[in-house]
């Protein structure tokens, strides 16, 4: 009986404070969407970083045209460097052909680029991840090599960007959460003020403070729940769209699509919504119904 009573009271309160409820709902939804988008971005970037970091390969580039025997000589020279497992040569033409066949039909490459922009590449496999930096340094010291890239330093750079995103995202989310909390506090405050007579009568007939508070707190939870549901719909729809678009456009970007990780992101975003609604209402009601 009591729960039904409380729920009916909260629903009435929610409907009565119309515009303010809508404002809270929109704010909480926007905050949760931003939070969710941020979490999805971090998880995806982490995923990319770990995939990049796990590859024990170095790419050494030679820009000018070289013939097969020069290529073989350079390969031999590289393979003599300590800790190198093997060396594979991909010529300018081969790389270009591969690239073109990968993107056949999707990009009109010949319209964009007239001549082959790709360098000759030596793919160097290293025996242990620890040796990558040293091997890369030795190879880059060879006069014939124009540039050396390896996933280690790319992963490091990527990690640095990821850390930056994490910190700025954290600040943004914290600010959003505070703003949302304040707006929920205000909404519930208005509901409480609008229901002063009801509260007076409740007290008069002997309602305890907690009995008076519960409907308002539930109203906060209700705002949180609806906000969580709305943000879930928005997040799920947009993320699926982004994944679909990116897979068509940049299929090499490893996006997270596993149900498990996504499930936990959506669940935590929803939980934060409910907690925000409840906490806001609690703070509001406690400050207004102090003492008796």
């Amino acid at each position: 009986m009591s729960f039904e009573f409380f729920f009916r009271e909260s629903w009435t309160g929610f409907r009565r404070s119309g515009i303010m409820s809508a404002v809270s709902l929109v704010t909480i939804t926007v905050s949760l969407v931003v939070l969710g988008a941020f979490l999805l971005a971090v998880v995806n970037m982490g995923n990319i970083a770990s995939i990049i970091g796990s590859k024990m390969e170095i790419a050494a580039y030679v820009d000018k045209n070289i013939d097969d025997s020069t290529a073989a000589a350079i390969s031999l020279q590289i393979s003599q460097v300590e800790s190198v497992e093997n060396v594979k040569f991909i010529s300018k033409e081969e790389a270009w052909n591969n690239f073109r066949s990968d993107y056949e039909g999707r990009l009109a490459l010949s319209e964009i680029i007239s001549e082959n922009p790709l360098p000759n590449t030596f793919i160097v496999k290293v025996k242990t991840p620890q040796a990558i930096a040293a091997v890369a340094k030795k190879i880059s010291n060879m006069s014939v090599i124009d540039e050396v890239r390896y996933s280690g330093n790319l992963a490091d750079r990527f990690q640095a960007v990821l850390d930056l995103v994490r910190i700025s995202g954290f600040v943004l989310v914290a600010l959003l959460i505070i703003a949302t909390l304040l707006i929920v506090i205000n909404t519930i405050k208005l509901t409480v003020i609008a229901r002063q007579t009801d509260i007076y009568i409740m007290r008069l007939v002997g309602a305890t403070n907690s009995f008076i508070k519960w409907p308002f707190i539930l109203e906060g939870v209700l705002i949180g729940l609806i906000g969580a549901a709305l943000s879930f719909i928005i997040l799920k729809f947009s993320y699926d769209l982004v994944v679909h678009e990116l897979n068509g456009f940049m299929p090499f970007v490893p996006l997270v699509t596993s149900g498990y990780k996504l499930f936990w992101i959506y669940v935590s975003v929803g939980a934060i919504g409910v907690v925000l609604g409840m906490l806001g209402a609690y703070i509001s009601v406690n400050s207004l119904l102090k003492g008796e």
Partner: protein
Amino acid sequence: MIVLRNVTKIYPKGVEALSNIDLCIGKEEFVFIVGPTGSGKSTLLKLLYREETATNGQVILDRVNLSEMKAPQIPFLRRNIGVVFQDYKLLPNRTIYENVAFALQVMGASRSFIRRHAGQALDLVGLLKKANCFPGQLSGGEQQRACIARAIVNNPPLVLADEPTGNLDPSTSWEIIHLLDKINKRNTTVIVTTHNKSIVDGMRKRVIALESGRIIRDQQLGVYSNVL
């Protein structure tokens, strides 16, 4: 049942509503408190249901000193007091039945208990047929009866009525007073503030007259005014 010892009430702005009141009201009494507006009648009732606390002195209800009562206990005090107001204080968006049932819901009573007791209370005040009406659909007298039904729905030993006939015409006022008298005869202490002379004179109950926060007369089988 009710004892006031040397009670003074001064409001925060310095207005002295009651000064040095000594008073004793026994169980199952019917008492009129009379006096002009601002004489302290409503303040006296507010002290009894702990809407206000005395600045000085003791307000004792059933051996409990209300001045020392802690906030969490107040709801339980109020469940033993029915209060009736001049402006009824009914919730406008609830039916009469819901208004009466509300007082029991607050106490966490079961649905069947609520149905039975709310029904009995509405029957007692003669509003059973209008149980599903909203307050706005009822006359002033009917709303006042609904307010009384809410006050007595949990059979409190004490009913306080603050100017219950203030907004009503003479014949409806008599109906309300007879209803309160009927409640008093069911072993309930009833305290009524009023400045309705004809009712006080007609009922011949105990009359306590206040003026400027002091008791100027306390008379069994009293009348509104001794002047004349």
